[in-house]
């Protein structure tokens, strides 16, 4: 038999109701305050972007943007830059122009051609594929073609143009959409001739002898890891 002071059941019930109610309200108000003060969930998360490598200095980007723009690459229209255009947009001497590509040595393939010829041979095709396969997050694939000083200047210009287009046709044979990623620059024999030093770079005919003339009968191909 209970002999203690009688507590009305209604009081017990109200207490049993009030205690959880107060706790829940306090917790919910605290959560509301936290929610109001919470930062944007993704503000510290990186945003998806194409590669922008360390070698992409402001100078290099400026030149690439000018070249790409002049080639219609940025606008997505037009293709193939005249050598005079390249000189104008690059606004630098031959050696400085070639030096821009120095940091890309490991990603570059120099596709060699026979004299007065634009045929992409077997080793050339493999070298193009090898260069193409290393895209990663690069935005643009540049093809910079040249001709040796042998022969007529205008013929050499045409020759370098056809060499660049041969490489592009090979790449875009399976997917014409890829054209939008490829920038062509044909220099003929006029501008930015490669020195013999470039014979030491990755080239399609790596087992053959390499002279200054040989290395300039070529298309220099590389993905450019710069967000331009």
């Amino acid at each position, binding site marked *: 038999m*209970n002999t203690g002071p009688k507590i009305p*059941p209604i009081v017990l019930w109200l207490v049993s109701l009030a205690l959880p109610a107060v706790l*829940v*309200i306090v917790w919910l108000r605290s959560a*509301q305050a936290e929610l109001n003060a919470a930062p944007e969930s*993704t503000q510290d998360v990186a*945003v998806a*972007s194409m590669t922008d490598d360390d070698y992409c200095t402001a100078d290099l980007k400026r030149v690439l943007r000018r070249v790409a723009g002049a080639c219609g690459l940025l606008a997505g229209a037009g293709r193939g830059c005249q050598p005079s255009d390249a000189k104008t947009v690059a606004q630098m001497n031959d050696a400085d122009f070639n030096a821009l590509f120095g940091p890309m040595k490991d990603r570059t393939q120099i596709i060699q051609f026979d004299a007065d010829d634009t045929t992409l041979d077997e080793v050339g095709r493999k070298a193009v*594929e090898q260069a193409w*396969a290393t895209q990663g997050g690069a935005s643009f694939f540049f093809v910079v073609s040249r001709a040796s000083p042998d022969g007529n200047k205008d013929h050499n210009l045409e020759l370098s143009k056809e060499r660049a287009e041969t490489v592009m046709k090979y790449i875009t044979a399976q997917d014409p959409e890829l054209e939008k990623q490829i920038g062509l620059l044909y220099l003929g024999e006029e501008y930015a001739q490669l020195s013999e030093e470039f014979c030491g770079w990755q080239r399609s005919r790596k087992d053959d002898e390499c002279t200054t003339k040989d290395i300039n009968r070529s298309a220099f191909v590389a993905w450019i890891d710069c967000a331009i």
Partner: protein
Amino acid sequence: MRFDPNALEDDTDAPTLPPVRAPARPFLWGTAGASALGAVFAAVSTRDFISHLDRQQHSIHCSLMPGGGASLGESGCRTVLMSPYSSVLRTELWGGVPISLLAFAVFAYLVYRSAATALEPRVTRRDAGYLWLATGLPAAMSVIYGLISTQALGAVCQVCLGIYISSTLAFVLAGLAFRGSEPTGGHASPWPMWGRWFAEGVVTVVALVGLYVAFAPKGAKDGQGCGVLAQTADPGHVLVPSPYSRGTSAVMVLDPLCPACRGFDKRLDASGLGARMDMKYVLFPLDASCNWMLTDSLHPGACAVSEAMLCDPNKAQQVLEWAFAHQEELLEGARKGDGPLRAELKMKFPHVQGCLGTNKVKAQLRKSLKWGVANAIPVLTPQLFVGERRMCDEDTDLGLEYTLTTMLNQVEGKR
């Protein structure tokens, strides 16, 4: 011990009870104590649930010691709390109303009812019988939730275990109190009194739920999304079919070896809202071997699995389900290189032979990643775009059903 409510109406004709009977009152106080313990466990669980309503990550208590074992990491308690079984009304309210809140209300009510019965001058069968019946509710719910926990979720939550034990204890002690209770006497039916007490219980639960709904945190951007798709077209044909193919167009940015993606996929499946979407996957492996946006691989091997999915988009779901099912072992195995994983993929899925690792499929995966660049998405997975709008990351777990329903209604309403 057999319970017959009709026998409570008139004890004069009932068989004589054993002369020596254990007194009911200690068992009633025991029932109150067990209910109070259950209320503490339920309160801890409710507090953990509510803390997540600010849409941030928080530690969760996971211990049989009430209030102990707080941890931010994976635990059975986190699995249970994030599961669709942790709350009800999830499409009406962000996160829904936690089941633990209902348990909190019921246990608080049982504390009151046990104490009120124990404080009565006489502990009659009518009073103790009602209490015994009332304690049967949390006990039955404990059995149901225990089965869900072990069978459907494959996870054991220690705080829930505390609730199950408290419920069982309360039920047993209330039964013993009933056994020790005195005959009611008279011919009065117990039902009117039981009805009143039951109404008190209902009011307790409804009042707490009502307060919860009234005070539940509301975000300024609830259902608004976080960002939009800049490019809805798919010129690169990177969108991969998902099992959901009817309704509002949606895109899920996915990494097949991302545990969060697997969890999200499960929650989406359990929500049943996939049936309202024509959802496509965009593969975005967080694996530095193909994803140039990372310096270190978060999920090594994800590039290989993504390539396998892209080899034949119509069979991508098979590959994805396999990858989800074996995620931990695939991630572990690929830490030293994805060669063995590629071999296993070719063996499991013969259709990827001649495709996996080729420049063509690698180029396709690159296009998939570039879809992310074109849309300037955050480098994280999973992400869900409903129509053109991106679901906020904080809405992908507890708030999934509410947010997705809201976003789907908005898109469907515009049609």
